């Protein structure tokens, strides 16, 4: 009984490690493959559109609402201490350091990550990937690499847009609606937000999340069992695994950046 469980644990571990190994190899294959600019660039543009531009709407809307909620909640707490002047830094810092990169990554995993997994899983199920291989075209380079890089480029851009829109949302509620002084909203923000410490670290976070989410989404799609259940399962797994990985990485990065 006990030995059986031990064996199961061992088998699961081996499988997980093997999966991670395959994912890493795939990632390396995609990242370090010599890019062909003439053919690769139009593919990248197309994927930037699919992955980035089409995610813009959800990012802007959620950024606006999250900024507005932060403005409202922050105001009700700060006004008790007569410190509503600190609303600007509160909104800006929470968005720049945490919410911007993290929520963008979560939304991105749900919006673009799952779509990519399903798309690649379906390509596999309909033998498109196999047939590409038989045409002597490397599917890693033709399918995986442009999507990967499009994701890695899009995510920080989306996170920056999310943060900026969120800060404007906080302004909308805090200043225009609740009557915090506009001057103090911006000046307190400027006094407390540092370009390197806060803005750049947020962007670095978001780049790391982009690598994590894209690697998981593409690997799950490429590794999916090529049936409809297999693809459905892979899509769900992408969202769950990518979200958890983003949160875990967020903790590690936060500890490294702001904990010391």
């Amino acid at each position: 009984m006990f030995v059986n469980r031990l064996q199961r644990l061992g088998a699961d571990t081996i499988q997980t490690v093997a999966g991670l190994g395959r994912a890493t190899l795939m990632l390396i294959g995609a990242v370090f493959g010599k890019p062909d600019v003439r053919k690769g660039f139009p593919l990248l543009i197309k994927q930037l559109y699919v992955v980035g531009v089409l995610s813009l709407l959800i990012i802007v809307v959620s950024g606006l609402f999250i900024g507005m909620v932060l403005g409202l909640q922050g105001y009700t707490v700060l006004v008790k201490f007569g410190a509503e002047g600190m609303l600007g830094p509160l909104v800006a810092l929470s968005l720049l350091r945490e919410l911007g990169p993290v929520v963008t990554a979560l939304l991105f995993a749900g919006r673009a990550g799952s779509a990519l997994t399903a798309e690649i899983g379906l390509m596999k199920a309909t033998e498109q990937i196999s047939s590409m291989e038989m045409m002597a075209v490397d599917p890693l380079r033709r399918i995986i690499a442009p999507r990967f890089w499009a994701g890695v480029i899009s995510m920080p851009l989306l996170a920056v847009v999310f943060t900026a829109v969120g800060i404007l949302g906080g302004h909308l509620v805090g200043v225009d609606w609740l009557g915090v002084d506009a001057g103090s909203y911006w000046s307190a923000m400027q006094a407390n937000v540092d370009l390197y410490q806060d803005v750049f670290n947020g962007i670095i976070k978001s780049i790391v999340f982009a690598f994590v989410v894209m690697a998981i989404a593409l690997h799950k799609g490429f590794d999916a069992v090529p049936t409809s259940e297999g693809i459905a399962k892979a899509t769900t797994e992408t969202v769950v695994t990518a979200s958890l990985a983003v949160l875990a990485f967020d903790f590690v990065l936060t500890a490294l950046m702001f904990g010391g």
Partner: protein
Amino acid sequence: MQAREQWMERILSDLMVDIQNLTFSRGERLIYDGMSMQVKRGQVTAIMGPSGIGKTTLLKLIGGQLKPERGDILYQGRSIPKMSRAELYQTRKSMSMLFQSGALFSEMTVFDNVAFPIREHTKLPETLIRTMVLMKLEAVGLRGARDLMPSELSGGMARRAALARAIALDPQLIMYDEPFAGQDPISMGIVVKLIRELNNALGLTSIVVSHDVPEVMSIADYVYVVAEKHVIGEGTPEQLRQHASPLVQQFLKGEADGAVPFHFKAAPYADELMELL
């Protein structure tokens, strides 16, 4: 001098694909056990057998997508499993495979699908590519459908479009995976005609994997019947009809019960019924 002779021999040899003692298993399940077969240049060679014996697997082995456990696969005298990745990709440019589903790229039009291998492997100007694509589409009778997306095609049309893509770069070997499965009689007739005509007109070598007996018998020059991990019968369609093996006869005539039993392997029926009592 010797190397040159070998080279000449390879070029002149009329063997396109030579499978020697192939053993392959997927997971625990043994699929092929020491199987051998030869495909001659310029012929249509058919591989028949019941479903689930890994006919598609065989094509993937020839294409180098899977590696055999033992045995060798020679393509124009060179071993496919021993090739490096770069060599394999180079070799694949001269072969082509028509997948059962067609496997057209769903995000491109029919035209772009056919143009895809040309654009990937050559640097021809767009006007020339256009001419080539239209010629290939004309050959399969789909020139008018060039601006449709694959989702707008019927199953038979998709397969013909895929065929146009497969011959886009004028390969030497073309492998058909179940080209007749799930086709209505008319499109089946079209595909049969196309396989035969393309083979003769372009000087191709064709491998057809199928279990549709009459169609295969009508176009193949040489037929292998595969079952139970081995080749159980081979020969021209004429020879095969006279074949002594009951297994081959059962397969060709489509009898429900015979050498291949109707029942999946199980304990004796009476015993199992008694168990419940």
